[in-house]
């Protein structure tokens, strides 16, 4: 139990996918201008990441490994992720038209969010078991959501702030992201894995 909890905290804070591993930067910069959209994106990505790491674990353990087809992992995982994203898109379209509209192109683009493929591949490299894979996927998504929502909240404040002219717009966003990354470096050593 403690191991799982440590894995969760370690992935959310210490080895944060966005700010420490630098994966999934595209939606981090792209969908962070409004808190509302960022929260929607967080939910969609959490759903996709957890489901994708679960499915890719099953496919890897019960299909690819017994047949020693590990050289197909990346390709198969991309297939799995694409399917999960398509599925999510249909569900979101059905349940919330506004969210579907505001996420727009970023919803299908979760497919190419490297954090999702990153989770699936890291699961196989680090030889996680079934439960660990799910927790790893979920906590990676949780870490992604955490920094995405925090970052979008900061960007909403920055929109009204008196920023010097050369730093206006994307420049200040980049600097903020860098400072956040520095701040997250402070968690190093909190959990020893």
């Amino acid at each position, binding site marked *: 139990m403690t191991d799982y909890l440590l894995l969760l905290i370690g992935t959310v804070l210490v080895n944060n996918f966005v700010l420490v591993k630098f994966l999934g930067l595209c939606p981090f910069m792209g969908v962070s201008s409004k808190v509302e959209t960022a929260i929607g994106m967080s939910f969609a990505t959490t759903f996709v990441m957890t489901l994708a790491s679960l499915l890719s674990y099953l496919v890897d353990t019960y299909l690819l490994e017994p047949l020693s087809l590990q050289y197909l992992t990346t390709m198969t995982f991309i297939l799995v992720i694409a*399917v999960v994203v398509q*599925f999510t898109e249909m569900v979101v379209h059905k349940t919330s038209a506004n969210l579907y509209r505001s996420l727009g192109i970023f919803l299908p683009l979760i497919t190419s969010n490297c954090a999702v493929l990153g989770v699936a591949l890291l699961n196989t490299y680090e030889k996680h078991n079934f439960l660990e894979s799910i927790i790893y996927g979920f906590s990676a998504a949780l870490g992604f959501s955490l920094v995405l929502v925090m970052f979008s909240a900061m960007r909403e404040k920055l929109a009204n702030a008196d920023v010097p002219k050369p730093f206006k717009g994307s420049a200040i966003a980049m600097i903020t992201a860098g400072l956040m990354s520095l701040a997250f470096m402070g968690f190093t050593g909190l959990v020893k894995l």
Partner: protein
Amino acid sequence: MTVLIAILVVGLISLAFGALLGFASVKFKVEGDPLAEQIDAILPQTQCGQCGYPGCKPYADAVANGEAINKCAPGGDDTIKKIADLMGVEPIAMDEAHETDNTPKVAFIIEEDCIGCTKCIQACPVDAIIGTTKQMHTIIADECTGCDLCVAPCPVDCIEMRPIPQTTRNWQWDLANIPVTQID
């Protein structure tokens, strides 16, 4: 041999996922476009066609599919703001080609000039014009939405748009627009 197995396995996986997606697309089928209906509810329903679409519903469909939100002249900036809120985009200024002064107007037929051609009756989207062939027409002012679609078809230019005079009956307090500021 291993290549064949690999092809078979990936093929089977793809087939299974394809079946899953096919099932999901039937199960989660979206009937109509709920967004278009919400936009349609915001539009003023004058059916005037000034946006370039045949009516408010077709324009709502077009907006839901990415048309610019600033083409509704009767709705004005208020409608643009509401649509922008609904779609989660920034409100933009009224399209210049569609900009009109938004003082409320009704059409008025100069009755002595009317030749009774019925062309304006066919153009009116809300059936606010009464009259028949070779008889003088007139406008039911309460029904007229002020869309000025009847002005162009009239062959003798006997229709003009008259602003509705402000009376004690239609005066509206615009309390929200009175600037209230704190004095230090």
